[in-house]
């Protein structure tokens, strides 16, 4: 290996890898490299989310593009001596395919090779803390082109021609929004980046802000130039401390290089960017609520019109865009609208970004062209359902979205097709569910979320969701009655049609889709008092099979309530009135004994052994 071919070690510090202690790996690597005096041969860089979170913590080695998975503390010494010193990569850390094959390069892993990365192109490949890294891959070229070669109107037209639709959920054409903002009368205007990422179970926007913050800030500056705003806000979710830190650093660096501030890049255009942290209210992702929050008030939505482009922040014309919309705008200005339009579908150009989670083999960040099918995403990229279980449903769009069944797997993913099927594109959460997921429980989960987050301003949302929640609780607890499902559908209708903002208007979607596609599961709860997925607490029981119990005491040691009882050499049992159904005994019972069983609470078996002392 020659001097010029420095080994670049990229350590992922995305939230997934960080929770798998990748920061310690980084320190340890740095220490070893220093100790072995490899400083001029090996360079260690922190990166944001590389994508394949399932294999956390991951390390990529460039320029070869090697990929180490689930790297442990004790693997570091071997990587350093074997790979960096002897030049022999540690093959046992390569990605292992379900067929047991080791794949050395990430570009050959289906999870990556089946993606098309536009917005995520830099994520996991550049140091997010280095503005020079971003510049080296063409960063801020889009802004430069806009400021030096184009009038604001031309920038608006470029985005209009690209067909970019907002990635915050609703898919409103970004160019049109910018045009409305541009044409709105008045000197004072604002541009806002919506980085509130409220969907509980999605992490795309946060990951982009950690992995490639400048791409978003560049888009924000371009937007401000196009509409004629001299002030901009980034409203970022407080629960993402890493994103907040990344943004602060990026704002400082880009200000120093004159990508915002006075007379940007020597032009006449000046822009002041502010950062504001949210305070944990889901509804503040809604644009009018978000602006109320910036103004320092309770984050309550207000009826539209007037739309923010006429009267937004402090009553001034305001354009608000999602993180991904703005990152796309940077790429469009850099590469041109024709290029962008060539990706994706006619009605939804570009790519779709999802955080793929739940019962899928490869969880992580995924970007595919619009029009790819759900099957492409879940099975080709995601590798199918975990532990070879059966696919049951996929949920998109967060609390405003819906659950689609296996019959819909060949649905192309774009704004219009998903809405037609009852789900929505949303901001990019995609959660895969298998036979161990209860659809009534999922519907109730989302509804309890929206019910709690309802700001309370309008009655259909405030009271309607509460009534729906009560019925769902009844069904979940096995107290459901005939007619409850119909009553739910009726309430859905009222809440959809009567609510003031998108929160209420979409809150019934998870209930509507689960009833439409999984009505039999509701009926099993209501009519047979059973939860087919064995999830609903009141409908299951944990019992110990006396024939199989070896009295090892594992269940007794972990049980938090003292319900699992027994002595040395005496068969254990579960005292049902103490059991909170946490499932700890079920988890720890050794596979060779396999004595703890989860059974339907109202079954014959439950009556037989359930109560036995």
């Amino acid at each position, binding site marked *: 290996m020659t001097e010029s071919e420095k080994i670049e070690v990229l350590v992922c510090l995305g*939230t*997934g890898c960080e*929770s*798998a202690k990748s920061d310690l790996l980084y320190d340890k690597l740095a220490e070893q490299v220093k100790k072995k005096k490899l400083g001029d041969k090996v360079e260690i860089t922190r990166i944001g989310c590389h994508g394949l*979170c*399932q294999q*956390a913590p991951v390390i990529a080695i460039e320029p070869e593009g090697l990929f180490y998975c689930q790297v442990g503390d004790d693997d570091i010494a071997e990587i350093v001596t074997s790979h960096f010193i002897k030049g022999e990569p540690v093959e046992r850390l390569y990605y292992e395919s379900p067929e047991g094959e080791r794949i050395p390069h990430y570009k050959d892993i289906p999870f990556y090779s089946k993606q098309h990365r536009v917005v995520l192109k830099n994520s996991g490949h550049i140091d997010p803390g280095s503005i020079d890294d971003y510049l080296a891959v063409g960063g801020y070229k889009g802004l430069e082109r806009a400021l030096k070669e184009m009038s604001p109107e031309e920038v608006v037209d470029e985005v209009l021609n690209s067909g970019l639709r907002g990635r915050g959920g609703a898919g409103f054409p970004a160019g049109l929004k910018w045009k409305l903002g541009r044409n709105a009368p008045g000197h004072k205007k604002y541009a806002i980046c919506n980085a509130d990422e409220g969907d*509980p*179970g*999605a992490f795309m926007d*946060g*990951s982009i802000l950690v992995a490639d913050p400048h791409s978003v800030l560049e888009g924000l500056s371009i937007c401000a130039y196009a509409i004629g705003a001299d002030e901009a806000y980034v409203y970022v979710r407080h*629960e*993402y*401390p890493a994103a907040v830190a990344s943004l602060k650093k990026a*704002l*400082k660096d880009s*200000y120093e290089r004159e990508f915002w*501030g*006075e007379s940007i890049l020597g032009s006449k255009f000046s822009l*002041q*960017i*502010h*950062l*504001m*942290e*949210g*305070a*944990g*209210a889901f509804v503040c992702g809604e644009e009018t609520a978000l602006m109320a929050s*910036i*103004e*320092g*008030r*309770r*984050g*309550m939505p207000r009826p539209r019109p007037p739309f923010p482009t006429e009267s937004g922040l*402090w009553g001034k014309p305001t354009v608000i865009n999602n993180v991904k919309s703005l990152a796309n705008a940077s790429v469009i200005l850099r590469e041109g609208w024709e290029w962008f339009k060539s990706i994706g579908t006619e009605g939804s150009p570009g790519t779709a970004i999802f*955080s*793929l*989670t*739940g*019962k899928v083999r490869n*969880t992580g960040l995924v970007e595919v062209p619009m029009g790819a099918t759900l099957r492409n995403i879940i099975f080709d990229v995601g590798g199918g359902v975990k532990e070879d279980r059966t696919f049951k449903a996929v949920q998109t769009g967060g609390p405003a979205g819906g659950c689609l069944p296996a019959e819909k797997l060949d649905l192309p993913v774009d704004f219009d097709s998903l809405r037609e099927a009852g789900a929505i594109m949303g901001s990019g*959460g995609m959660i895969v*569910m298998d036979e161990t997921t209860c659809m009534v429980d*999922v519907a109730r*989960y*989302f509804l309890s*979320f929206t019910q709690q987050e309802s*700001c309370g301003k309008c009655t259909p949302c405030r009271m309607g969701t509460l009534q729906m929640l009560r019925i769902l609780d009844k069904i979940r607890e096995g107290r459901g009655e005939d007619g409850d499902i119909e009553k739910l559908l009726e309430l859905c209708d009222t809440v959809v049609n009567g609510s003031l903002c998108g929160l209420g208007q979409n809150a019934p979607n998870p209930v509507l889709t689960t009833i439409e596609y999984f009505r039999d599961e509701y009926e099993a709860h209501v009519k047979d008092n059973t939860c087919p997925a064995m999830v609903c607490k009141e409908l299951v029981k944990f019992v110990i099979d006396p024939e199989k119990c070896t009295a090892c005491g594992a269940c007794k040691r*972990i049980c*938090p*309530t003292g319900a699992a009882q027994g002595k040395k050499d005496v068969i254990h049992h579960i005292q049902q009135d103490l059991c*909170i159904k*946490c*499932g*700890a005994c079920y*988890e*720890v019972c050794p596979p060779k004994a396999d004595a703890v069983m989860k059974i339907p609470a109202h079954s014959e078996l439950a009556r037989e052994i359930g109560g036995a002392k």
Partner: protein
Amino acid sequence: MSLGLIPNPFMTSESRRESMAEQSAVELQHEVIPRLQEIQEKFGYIPQEAVEWLSSQLKVSSQEIYGVATFYNHFRFNPPGKHEIRVCLGTACHVGGGEKILDTLSERLGIQPGETTADERYSLERVACVGACALAPAVLLDDEVHGRMTQRSLKRLLDKVDRADKKAAKGSDE
């Protein structure tokens, strides 16, 4: 007056004062949430005295400040325990069994979410997604994310904290 967290580079302190006088009410209202965040950062919660102080500083009534503060989940009004445990109940974590983790914690600590134990050692909260969805279910212990939680790893985690605390207490006794 600086807006948000990045100081406004355009404004000298002179012009800042002028503009404050000009649109003070609007500007001061805008400061409410960032200032509350600073207070919580410092004390771990929002003490009543701090609200009164803030009210006098920003010329916004304490009722108004409480009105804003209580709207947002982030603000708390009682002191947190020595260790803050937050259980993620985002979608991925819910589907992955986060609820059961919360039940176990609630049982073991003898408190409900939002409460602090009598010995002030632990407080328990729920959060909606911390971004580690790919490694669900996730638990935050003193701001450190622990992914792929199981009943077993949860017990281990708590036992470890208990042991460390006991050792520290013993050390300070001697």
